[in-house]
């Protein structure tokens, strides 16, 4: 168990290193950072001075090592556009993205599992077919289009929900939350649904497929032969076994949710990391882009690790053995 965890951790560090190289090389060579710092009419000599002060004239390996050393200490430099440390900016935006991603995931899990279980147990009912239809539409419509349609319907036409932003936020230490105010909660509804819809669809389909498969297993047949109630079989045995792989996938999907928030945050002007990233891409704000990539990778890798470990906790079969085969 410990060896397994350690091996996974080492692999995670390897992944981070690879991502670091990609991030560094990609953003080091995409566009000229100096252009972003100085105004258009700055003379060439001053441009050179800026280049030097940023260390952009050092050999590339030196730049890379310096970059990596700083990144390991969560020092990502200063944003070219905001003239603030990137880590502070990211930290400021992190709560918004995490709150959105968590709410979207909760929405996706709750609705997805309920709908999936229902459509597995009552395969031929009208409602199950409706769920199937909804899930197909959820998979077939691009996120940005759903967001725009929701805004058009609920914000502009009906005027029920705000079209952008987080509403009023409350500070809890360094964390800001929109979950404690009415306007914050209202502002959360549409972005969370938009972001969670795709995951909900995935989870619903996964739950349905897994559940159908579990219902065909021998232990379910045996549970029926033991005379257990349908309820106990469906919600005690089948659901628990269904949820093991579902939770894994949902956990891994959390990374996607965070990355997909790039689109949702852009549409809803949600002040999170994704929006910061998009703005950084538009403004070639290299430190932010690189930091975002590393940060998101770190979240992914951490989730991966946690899910791996969690998996062994949830599934007793894996507890005593070394790990699941990949």
């Amino acid at each position, binding site marked *: 168990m410990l060896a397994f965890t350690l091996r996974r951790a080492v692999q995670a560090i390897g992944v981070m290193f690879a991502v670091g190289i990609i991030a560094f090389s990609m953003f080091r060579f995409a566009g000229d950072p100096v252009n972003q710092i100085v105004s258009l009419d700055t003379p060439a000599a001053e441009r050179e001075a800026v280049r030097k002060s940023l260390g952009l004239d050092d050999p590339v390996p030196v730049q890379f090592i310096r970059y990596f050393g700083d990144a390991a200490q969560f020092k990502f430099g200063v944003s070219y556009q905001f003239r603030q440390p990137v880590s502070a900016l990211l930290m400021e935006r992190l709560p918004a993205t995490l709150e959105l991603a968590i709410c979207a995931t909760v929405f996706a899990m709750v609705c997805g599992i309920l709908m999936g279980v229902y459509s597995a147990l009552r395969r031929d009912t009208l409602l199950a077919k409706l769920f199937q239809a909804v899930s197909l539409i959820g998979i077939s419509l691009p996120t940005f289009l759903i967001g725009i349609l929701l805004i058009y319907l609920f914000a502009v036409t009906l005027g029920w929900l705000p079209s952008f932003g987080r509403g009023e936020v409350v500070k809890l230490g360094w964390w800001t939350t929109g979950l404690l105010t009415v306007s914050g909660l209202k502002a959360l509804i549409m972005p969370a649904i938009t972001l969670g819809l795709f995951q909900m669809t995935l989870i619903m389909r996964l739950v349905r497929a897994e559940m159908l498969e579990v219902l065909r297993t021998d232990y379910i047949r045996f549970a029926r032969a033991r005379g257990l109630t349908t309820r106990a079989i469906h919600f005690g045995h089948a659901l628990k076994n269904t949820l093991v792989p579902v939770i894994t996938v949902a956990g891994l999907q959390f990374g996607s949710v965070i990355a997909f928030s790039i*689109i949702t945050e852009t549409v809803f002007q949600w002040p999170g990391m994704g929006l910061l990233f998009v703005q950084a891409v538009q403004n070639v704000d290299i430190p932010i882009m690189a930091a975002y990539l590393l940060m998101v990778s770190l979240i992914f890798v951490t989730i991966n690790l946690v899910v791996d470990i969690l998996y062994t906790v949830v599934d007793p079969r894996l507890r005593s053995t070394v790990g699941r085969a990949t």
Partner: protein
Amino acid sequence: MSDAVASNADKQSKLPTHAARSWFSRALDSDVFYSFRRSKLTMVAAAITLLFFLLAIFASWLAVQNPFDPAQLQLINSRISPLWTADGQSPFLLGTDEQGRDVFSAILYGMRISLAVGVAGVIFAGVLGIGLGLIAGYFGGAVDSVIMRIADVQLTFPAILIALLVNGVAKSVLGNRLDATSMLVVLVISIGLSFWVGYARTVRGSVMVEKNKDYVAAAQLIGLPAPKIMLRHVLPNAMGPILVIATINLALAIITEATLSFLGVGLPDTMPSLGTLIRIGNNYLFAGEWWIVAFPGIALAGLILSINLLGDWLRDALNPKLR
């Protein structure tokens, strides 16, 4: 995005693989056709998908103009509403956009690009995934764990982020030489790199099953190259699941292309795909020029919906346990 596909693939790979019957004969097996005929929805979906493919292939014969040729666009014809509305004008069936581009023609040509990018991306992903899956399964050991670890990591990175990365790298490498053609290639590569894992896992699973079978040893004994033999046995077995993954991936690839266009890293506006058309048209929604976004949107949703329906049906039809 790719996770569910992969987990589908996992499930697929867990299926008992039948003896090495050719995939083709199995696909043509009357069971599959029976379930096809039984489901009206699937038939409709297949008809729509086929129709879209045909429309895309024969776009140049069906369109009233070539929307990619600026000389054929008349600014004076811009923003005409669809034919059946009060301000409609022939021959612009579905109206025109800001540049005087006929929306119907643009949809046909755009669909051609979306489908081309999707199909090419899926093929690229398939070749890459099948190749890596074969290698991982055949060699096992360190090679296997390296490839599968990459696959694991890859799975957590959503396609859109990978595509953005590939695009970014391409932009910095190609810089200003990035024209429409190379952009197409970049899109195909981005999509290919995002979706290979499903195939790799499926094929690897099949190889693992086949590797230990006697015929491989026997083939080796009589001097036949084992990889070749296995290829001949593994691929037909894995073809069903691969086809399912490919179908679902095609839909995802088209959405990914559209999303990349939304984020402004797709094809240039002078060569709009369906996604680009929607991004552009979306700007005119509040202005009441709904047809610029609505028809491409309906076409895209209809296309993806049909492909997804086909994929669902195919998955159920090829998976005897689900029947």
